[in-house]
C-alpha cells in the first residue's frame, strides 16, 4: 500500500519531466523538424496544392495549438496513423519487440561478462590480470561502434572473412534464423559495451572494497567469499541498479538505431529515425511520449528497487 501511494506520488512528481521531454522533443522533432509537405506532394505541384497539404498536416497552426493537441493525444493515447496509413500503435507494437529481442542478448551479456571481468580485475587488483583486463577495456572503449560493426561484418559475414552469418536482413520466424541474425549484432554490442561496463563495475567494486566495514570484517577473519557477497557485492547493487535501469529507455527506444540501420532490421530505432528524416509527425509524437513516460516509470521503479535491496532507503 505504501509502495502504491509512493508510486502515485512519484508519478505525479514526474509530470514536469514529461512536460519537459515532450516540449523539447516536440519543438525539435515536430515543430522545427523536416517538412513532410514536399514528400507528400506529387511530381508537379501547384502552390495551391502545397497549401492544402500543409493544412492537412496542421503546419499552418500556431505552436501552442499544435503542442496542446499533442498533449491531448498523449492523454487519450491516440496518435492516429503513420504516413503509411498504419496506426501508430500497430507500428510500435511491431517494432518495439524486434528491438528488444535484438538488443537484449548483447545488453545482458555485456553487463554479466563486464561484471565478471570487473570482479576478476578487482579481486586481483594491481596484478597483471587486472592490468590486462583494463587495457582491453580501454581498447574496446577506443573503437567506434560503427567501426566495430563494419569490422565484424568483414570478419564474420563477408567472403573475405569467415562468411558465417548473414550480413543484413532480419528474420526471427524461427529460433534458428533468429540466432543466425542476432549473433553478429550481439557480438558488436557486447564488444563496445564491455569496455565501459568493466570499468564501471570495477570502479564501484574497488570503492566498496576499500570501505571501513569491509576492512573490519576482514579483521574479524570472516571468509573472503562471504565478505565478497555480503559486504561488497550487496553494497554495489545501488549503483548497478541505477546504471541498468537508466539505460533501459535508451535501449528500448534509441539504443539500437545504429545496429538497426546497418543490419536493416525493422526495429523502433530505425522507425523513429526514419520518422525524424521524413517528418512523420504521428510516429514522432508517439515515440516522444513513450520515451517520457518510460523515463518517469524507470525513476519510480528504480526508487522502489533501491528500497528492496537496502531497507535503510526510505520512500519519502
Amino acid at each position, binding site marked *: 500500500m505504501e509502495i502504491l501511494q509512493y508510486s502515485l506520488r512519484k508519478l505525479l512528481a514526474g509530470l514536469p519531466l514529461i512536460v519537459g521531454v515532450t516540449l523539447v522533443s516536440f519543438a525539435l522533432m515536430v515543430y522545427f523538424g523536416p517538412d513532410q509537405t514536399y514528400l507528400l506532394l506529387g511530381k508537379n505541384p501547384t502552390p495551391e496544392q502545397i497549401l492544402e497539404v500543409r493544412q492537412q498536416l496542421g503546419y499552418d497552426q500556431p505552436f501552442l495549438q499544435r503542442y496542446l493537441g499533442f498533449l491531448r493525444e498523449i492523454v487519450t493515447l491516440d496518435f492516429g496513423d503513420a504516413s503509411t496509413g498504419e496506426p501508430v500503435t500497430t507500428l510500435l507494437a511491431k517494432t518495439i519487440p524486434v528491438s528488444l529481442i535484438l538488443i537484449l542478448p548483447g545488453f545482458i551479456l555485456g553487463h554479466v561478462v563486464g561484471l565478471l571481468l570487473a570482479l576478476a580485475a578487482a579481486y586481483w587488483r594491481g596484478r597483471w590480470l587486472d592490468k590486462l583486463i583494463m587495457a582491453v577495456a580501454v581498447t574496446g572503449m577506443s573503437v567506434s561502434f560503427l567501426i566495430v560493426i563494419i569490422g565484424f561484418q568483414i570478419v564474420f559475414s563477408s567472403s573475405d572473412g569467415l562468411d558465417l552469418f*548473414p550480413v543484413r*536482413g532480419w528474420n526471427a520466424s524461427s529460433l534458428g534464423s533468429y540466432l543466425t541474425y542476432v549473433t553478429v549484432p550481439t557480438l558488436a554490442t557486447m564488444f563496445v559495451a564491455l569496455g565501459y561496463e568493466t570499468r564501471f563495475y570495477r570502479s564501484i567494486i574497488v570503492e566498496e572494497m576499500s570501505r571501513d566495514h569491509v576492512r573490519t570484517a576482514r579483521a574479524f577473519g570472516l571468509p573472503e567469499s562471504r565478505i565478497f557477497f555480503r559486504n561488497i557485492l550487496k553494497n554495489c547493487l545501488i549503483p548497478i541498479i541505477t546504471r541498468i535501469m537508466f539505460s533501459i529507455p535508451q535501449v528500448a527506444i534509441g539504443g539500437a538505431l545504429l545496429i538497426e540501420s546497418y543490419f536493416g532490421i525493422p526495429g523502433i530505432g530505425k522507425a523513429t529515425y526514419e520518422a525524424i528524416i521524413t517528418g512523420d509527425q504521428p510516429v514522432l509524437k508517439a515515440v516522444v511520449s513513450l520515451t517520457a513516460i518510460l523515463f518517469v516509470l524507470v525513476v519510480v521503479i528504480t526508487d522502489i528497487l533501491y528500497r528492496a535491496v537496502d531497507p535503510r532507503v526510505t520512500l519519502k
Partner: protein
Amino acid sequence: MHFLATLVAIGLVLAGCGPADGPAVSGPPLKTYRHFMDQAPTTLDPVQGSNIYANFVILNAYDTLYSYKYLARPYELKPNLAADFPTISPDGLEYTIRLKKGVHFINDPCFPGGRGREVVAEDFIYSIKRQFDPKSQPQGAWLWQGRIAGLEEWKAAGSDYDKPVSGLRAIDSHTLEIRLIRPYPQLVATLAQGYAALVPREAVEKYGKGLGVRPVGSGPFKLISYDTAHIVMERNREFRQEPVDLAFEGYAPATQSFSGVEAIQGRSPPFVDRLEFNFINEKSAAWTSFTKGDEIQLTELPPEQVDRVLASKQPVVLRPEYASKYHTLAGLEAGFIFETFNMDFPEFGYNPDPERQRRNKALRCAVIKGFDWEARNNSWYFGLGKYYPGIIVPASPEFDSEMSRISVTRDVEGARRLLSDNGWTPENLPRILYATVGGSSERLRFEQFRAWMRDIGFPREKIVPKTYAAFGDISRAWKRSELPFVTMAWGLDYPDAENTLQLFYGPNKSPGSNNANWKNAEFDRLYDQTAVMLPSPERTAIYRRMNQLVIDDCVAITGLSRTRIYLWHKNVIAYPDREILGGFWLRYVDVMPAKDAGAASRVAEGN
C-alpha cells in the same frame, strides 16, 4: 511443452519445410515467388502512388483500365480492365471506354455481406475524384488537371463525392465517358498508372487512411501481410480468366526465349500462389540473400559486385559460375539523372542586363563543357550507364541516337576559352552553391564537380557545398526556387518524351516540375502545340527541336540513364522490368516446381 513445441518447429525448419514454404503437411505445395525491391512503398493507397515502389505493389492489388504489354519493347499499351481501347470523338475531346463485365473486388468486410462487389464505371469516376480531394493528400492530380473537364470546379465546390464531375460520366454500369478540355494524347497512358487504379468507395469510407496498409482492389493478388520489411500477397482466386497470347504481348523469341516465357502461353495469370516482396535497402544485402538460393529469387546486381560477377560489361555477360545458375537481363532505366541551373539566379541565369545575360550563357556552356560525364559514369555506375545529350531519354520512342555528343563531351580547353572570351576571370566568376542531402556519396559527387570546375578556372572557394539533412528540406528549397543549382532524377510516368520535356515548360516553374525555371517562348509554344498532337513523325520532329533548344541555351547538364542488371534464379520464368511496365509483370511470373527440390537441398547444405 512450449519448449518442446519450439524444438519441433526448429526441427521442421532445419528439414527445409519452414512456414514460408506453406503447408507441407497436405495438398500440393504452394508456388511462391520472392521478389526484391530496394525500398518499401510509402503507402499502398493509389491516391498517393507517386512513389515507384508504391506504384509497383499497387498495380498488383488493384486494376487499372489500361496496362502495358508484357514483352513488347518499346512499351505498348493494352486494355486491362477496359474491354478495348477507347472510342475517341473526331475532335479528340470525348473518350468512351467500356469496362469488362463480371470483374469483382476481392472479398472484404467493407462490402455488404463481405462479398466483393462488381467493378463498375462509377468506381473509376470515384477514384479520379479522390485525386482532387485535398483530404486524401493526392499526388496524381497534375496528370488530369486542366485536361479532364469539371474536376477543378468539383474541387472548388468542396470535393463532395455525391456531386457529379462534368467531364466524367458513367453512361451505364460498364461504360465510361471522359470529356476533355483540350486533346490529351497521353490520357490512355495516364490511365495505366497506379494513380488511376479503381478503388471501391466502400473501402475508403470504412478504412480511411488505413487503406494505405489494406488494399481492397480487383487486381491479380490480394494482401496478406504488410510491414516495412515484407509484403506478402496471395493469388486472387477470383481473378478473371485471360489466357496469355504471347504474340499479342510482343514476344520476340530471338531475344526473349532464354527466359522460358513460352511456358505461360495459353494459361491464365496469375501463376504463383504467393507473392512476396522483400524490401532490402542495400543492394549488397539483397545480393547475399539472392545468392543463398532459398531467399529472394530476383535481384539487381549491386555495383560493387560488377567485376566479380560479369565476364563482360558490353554486352552484359555473366561469368560461367553465375550463368549456370541465373538468368540475366540488362536494361536502361526509363528515366535519367541530370543537373540544371536555376535560371532565377541572376549571377548565371536571367539577368536584366542583356550583356550580362549573354555572358551568363557562355558561363553555363563552359560549366557544361567542364562536366565529365564519362568519369561520373565510371565512378558511380561502373561505366554501365548511358549518357547522351538533351532531355529525351532512350526509353522514349522519340529518342534520337544520332545527336551530336558535344554537350556531353568534356572539353576543358574549350571551356576555359569560352570563359576568357566572354570576360570571365577567377575574380569575377560567380559563386556556385551546390546543394545535396547528407551522405558520403553525395559529398563525393560535389567534390568531383568542384574538382572539374577548378580545371576550367573556378577558384576552389567559389564552388560551395550546402548539405541538407533531409530530402524533404532540400525538396522544399528546390520548390521554393532557393537553390541556384539543382541535381535531379526523373522517372518516366509513360513512354512519351512529353513527360521529360514538361520539365522545362515555362508554366511548370517552381514549385512545379520545372526546377530550372527556364522560360523559352519558342519552347513553350512548341510544347503547347505538341500537347494536343497524337504520336506522329511530325510530333517527333518538334520534340527533337525542343530538345535542341534546351541544349542550345546551356540550361542543363544532361543526362545519364542508369543501367539495371537483373539476375534471377533459373527456376523462375520471368522477364523482369521495374520501369514503365512496373508492377504489371508479376502476374506473369511462374516458378518451376521441379527446381524446388534443388532449393531445398541447398538449404540442407547450408545447415
